[in-house]
Structure formats: C-alpha cells, structure tokens
C-alpha cells in the first residue's frame, strides 16, 4: 500500500511573548489511501495543530519547527506556491464548528462552488451546477433552493453537511475531519458519520479523523493514534486499542470512562492534570501521573516503538489486560 500522507517527526512551534512553546513534538503518522486514521487525545494535546500542519493553515506565530509532511509521495514545502495548490487540490477539511467555518455573507451554493473551482479549475457555471449536486450528495433536501440560502438560514446539522460538501468538492484524496460531530446532537451525529463513511467509500479518500471521543473513534477509524502532551503515545488498530491498551495513558482514559452496561461504584480517574506547555517534564510527559512510572521515565522520553502490530511510546508497556488488572 502506498502512503497518502506521511508525517515525519513533526514539531510545531508557537512563538509567544515570553519565548517559544512546542505543542506538537516529534509526531510521525502515516495514512494510506482510503484508510481512516483516528487521532484522539484530550484538549491541548496537539491533535488540531497536527491537522493544521497537514493543511498548512497556520497563524503568524505558529510554524513547523522540525520534521516534514509528505503528501502523495512528495514532500510538501510550506513556502512553495506549487505545493500550496497541490494541497488545495488534494485535501479537504471539516472543522468542528460549522457556523464559524462557513462564510456568513455568501450563499451555500457560492461557497461550495468556490471550493470546487479551486480544486478543479472549472468555470463558474459548471461549478454552480456541481455545487447543487454536491449539496444533494451530502443529503441536503431541496438542494437547488438551499444553494441560495445563507448559513444562518439552515440548522447546525445542515451547516455541517454544507461544510462537508465544500470539503469533498472535486473529490480530494485526503479529508481532514477535526471533531466533525462534536457540535452536533447525537441523533444528527449518527447521520453525519453515516454520510462520511458513505462518501469515503464512494470517493475512496483517506481520512484523518480527530476527536476527543474514544467511543466514536472506535466506530469510525481503522487505526487510532493516541496523543498526549504533543506526542503520539500509542498507535494501534481500533479493535486492539480497546481490547489491549498498551500505554498506561490509553488504559487510564479507557478506565475513566463510564460504560453503558457496567455497574461500578467509582470511576477510576487518571490522577493529576496534563502538564503545561511551559513545564514539560524532562522524561515521559505522562510519568508524573503514571502508576507504573520508574526513575527512567522521569529522565528519558520514550520513543514510539513497534510492538505486536502497533506502536507504543512507553518504557513499561502494559501486558494484556487480564494480567495488568
């Protein structure tokens, strides 16, 4: 399988008034065509910044400090204009909040057509016609009429559908979905997930699916990368990750979730809180909260190493669940 997206040792730097911080540190991820890679982690772990690095959507103070991103077999140069249009043609992104992702003063049809024109370079008239088809494809009823609506005239679920229509216009080979259903109600979330998996099958695009919801990622992703404090700490197939978490952080996350059919008196939280970007521990970032931490963990940051079909960044990876419990 060739690689669609290849992130190598990505480090992102944000320049703040009192010095730089590094919210993403040495992240390596690969995604094949048609595959869905889930990226999970708590707020501030660097998952959204990883997406924005892929898309090349950075503000003034943010920059890729180290590492590179390969797309469709060739390295992307953040400064090159040619690579910018290669990105624009090949990638689409869905943002968490559809209302802020859409332009409030343009009609839905106009916005979808614009995205289609950028990807395909087609004429406005053809793009307008295609926009209506795309709105229909994402399940917006009466697409011809809705194409003349403005974002505020439709509901949140329909806005998210419109944003998906923009993201998939011109059939990109990579879709980056950053918390695409977090702002939606659960009954609508199910519809959007169905839509995404149908589109993915039809277009054959790879998907980077970012979420904080572990349950959701199990439904959607083939493989899952768990991020903590700017690093990937575990990478595994979705089934393995839930059945046999190897990193203590993954295990802690799973244990702290209440289950629908489980009667426990108390939940088992992970003690403590995520370290601040300014005060990252020298060794493993999870060591101060980890029940298995040793002196090595406090000194040496563990590398992500392959382990039985997955990879884990831990000096003391957990054995299978029954023994660990």
């Amino acid at each position, binding site marked *: 399988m060739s690689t669609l997206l290849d992130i190598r040792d990505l480090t992102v730097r944000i320049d703040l008034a009192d010095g730089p911080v590094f919210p993403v540190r040495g992240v390596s991820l690969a995604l094949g065509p048609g595959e869905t890679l889930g990226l999970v982690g708590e707020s501030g772990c660097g998952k959204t910044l990883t997406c924005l690095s892929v898309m090349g959507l950075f503000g003034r103070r943010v920059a890729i400090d180290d590492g590179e991103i390969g797309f469709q077999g060739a390295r992307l140069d953040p400064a090159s204009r040619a690579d910018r249009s290669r990105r624009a043609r090949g990638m689409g992104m869905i943002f968490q909040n559809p209302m802020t992702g859409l332009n409030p003063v343009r009609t839905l049809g106009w916005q979808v057509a614009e995205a289609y024109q950028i990807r395909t370079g087609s004429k406005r008239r053809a793009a307008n016609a295609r926009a209506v088809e795309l709105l229909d494809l994402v399940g917006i009823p009466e697409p011809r009429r809705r194409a003349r609506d403005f974002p505020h005239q439709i509901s949140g679920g329909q806005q998210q559908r419109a944003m998906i229509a923009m993201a998939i216009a011109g059939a990109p080979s990579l879709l980056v979905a950053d918390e695409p259903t977090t702002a939606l109600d659960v*009954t609508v979330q199910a519809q959007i997930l169905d839509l995404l998996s149908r589109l993915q099958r039809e277009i054959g695009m790879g998907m980077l699916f970012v979420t904080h919801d572990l349950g959701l990622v199990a439904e959607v992703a083939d493989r899952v990368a768990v991020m903590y404090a700017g690093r990937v700490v575990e990478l595994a197939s979705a089934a393995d990750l839930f059945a046999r978490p190897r990193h203590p952080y993954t295990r802690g996350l799973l244990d702290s979730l209440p289950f629908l059919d489980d009667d426990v008196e108390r939940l088992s939280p992970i003690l403590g809180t995520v370290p601040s970007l300014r005060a990252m521990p020298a060794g493993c970032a999870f060591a101060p909260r980890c029940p298995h931490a040793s002196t090595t963990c406090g000194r040496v940051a563990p590398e992500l190493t392959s382990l039985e079909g997955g990879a884990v960044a831990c000096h003391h990876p957990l054995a299978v669940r029954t023994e660990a419990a």
Partner: protein
Amino acid sequence: MSAVRLGLGGPAIDHPGSTAAALLQVRGLSKRFTLPRDTLFGPRPELAAVDDISFDLAAGETLAVVGESGCGKSTVGNLVLNLLSPSGGSIRFDGEDLAAADDARWRERRRDLQLIFQDSRSALDPRLTIDCQVAEGLEIHGVATAADRAAMAAAMLEAVGLGGDLARRYPHELSGGQQQRAVIARALVLEPKLVVCDEPVAALDVSVQAQVVNLLRDLQRNFGLAYLFISHDLSLVRHVADRVAVMYLGRFVEVAECEALFAAPAHPYARALIGAVPAARSRHGRRVPPLRLEGEPPSPLNPPSGCALNPRCPFATDLCRSDRPALRRLADGRSVACHHAEALPGAVVGPDIQPARAVS
C-alpha cells in the same frame, strides 16, 4: 420555616416519576418565552421551552434529565431554582410552594437549592481567591462568624481536594478540573438539600471528568444531597442517576428507573438516543440496537402537531400525527409518552428475555 402544609403521599402516587417522600415536587411546569415580533404589527411568537412537566425528587436521589440541545433541559433546572419564573405549574420544595414565595423568601430558600454550572471559568469571580468565594455564600446567608466561615470554607475546599495552598489561589491559577471543584465547593458549603448540576463535567477532559464525578457521588453520600442532573452524556448518566427523564422538545417522553431505561428504552426517541451511543462505550456490546431518526429536531417555535417526534419517527402512524400522546405509566412502572410503546417492533425487552450479546 412554615410547617408542611400538605401530605405528600397521596396525590404523588398518581403522577409519573413519583417517589415516596419527595423533597422536590414539580407539577405541570411550563415555561413559554415570548419572542419579538416578526413584523411590525404581527403577533408575538411564543416558544414553549418547557411544557407540562411533572416529577418528584427525593432526598439523596439523582434524577437525570437527558436530551439534545434546545430540548429545554437547562430551562427545567433554571425554573426549579427560580432563575426563570414559570409560566404555569407548581414547584413544591420541602413542603413549601415556591411559586408563592416572594424575593425575600427565595433568598432564604436559596441556601437549600444550589447550582453547579457547566462553565466553571465564567461562574467564578476572577478577582477573588477561591477561599473567599466559598466563604462569600456563607456571609450572604449570615452563617456563623467571619472566623468560623473561613474555617468552614477551608474544610469544604479540603473535602473537594483543594486544600492548603490551592485554596488561596485565584481562579485563573487553577486547571479546569480544579475550577469545577471550586464551583462545587462554593455550592455545597451552604449545605444545600438539592443541587442542580447543569452539565457539570461537559467542559472537562475525560481523565478529569472521572475525578469530578467521583467527587459528586462522594458528596451526595456524605451529605444526603438530591441531584437534578442535566446532561447529554448518556453513559455518564447511566453511571450517576437513579432515575432518568428523557426530554424532547420541551416535554418528558420517558421517565424510568436508570437500569430499566438503559436495558430497554420504550420510547422511540429514547431508543434512538441510547442506540446512538458508540458500541465501544458498552463492555458487552450494544444492548439497544441503533435506531436512525430522520432529519433534525424541529424548531420549538413551530412544533409538529400530534407527537413531537412524528416527522422523524420510523414508527409514526396517523394517530401520532393527529393526537399528542400523554405520559402514561406502563406495567413495569416507567412512564412513556408514546401511543405505540407496547406494540413497537422489538418493544420493551422483558427482564426474562436476554438480548443477544456480542460473543467475544
């Protein structure tokens, strides 16, 4: 405090979702908001945010109200706390009809009725240290002397895990989980009887969520608190609630014991909600199969006739389109507002029939 004027045992039994000795008794509660006119001389549109809701809540009990955004669940909480005044119905707390209470009386009662907000950052005063904020409530209610108040605040902060040095900090010096603990301490230092928890952990990360949920449960046990727990996270509700009320478009559509609801929800909307929880959130696979609803919740400004769910419900009939179903009690004690609750395909799986489970 005036004596209890009415026995609670008799009439409460007839109402859905009642329990023996109710601390809080809500009957026919409604809230309508009047909106600005669309046109200069047109009528003012009315929005029924909460429509004819009745429930009881006993001391030490947790009633969860679940539903999607805009269904009116937060409005229920605000009505109970008199942060909004109801358009109809009655709220009886500890035997006292709160609809009749004036502002002065409310100030006294507020000590017993506290609220935990979703967004702890905006709920805390940025210019006061945590211990001062916790003591402030005691001061307002004129409890004890200043020195005693400080001691009580310190003890409460200790109980929520913000003892010692942390208590002297300002809100911005605390993490999200610690801020939420401070909000909890501030509500509980007054020793309330009822706490309305409006999405208390929704803004927190999962690993911290569990800490706060454990804390809420410990405090409930220690102080005998009743919780009105408003949330959209069903697996969390399953963990904390004794009873659950499922809300759709301003009305309760199902009220049931927690275990019974999650094993076999009777209302199609409850089935859709529970079925939409990812399978990975169950240890033994889904017990409730997914049920896809068409479309999105309708606007409460223009609710459908008959059953509010009928345009989206796969089981809807002509009856559902014309008549609104009343909340009625089923044989197993739960209350459901659905014409066809017993007749639905795969309806209420009895406790004797084990649903198929994923074989590992």
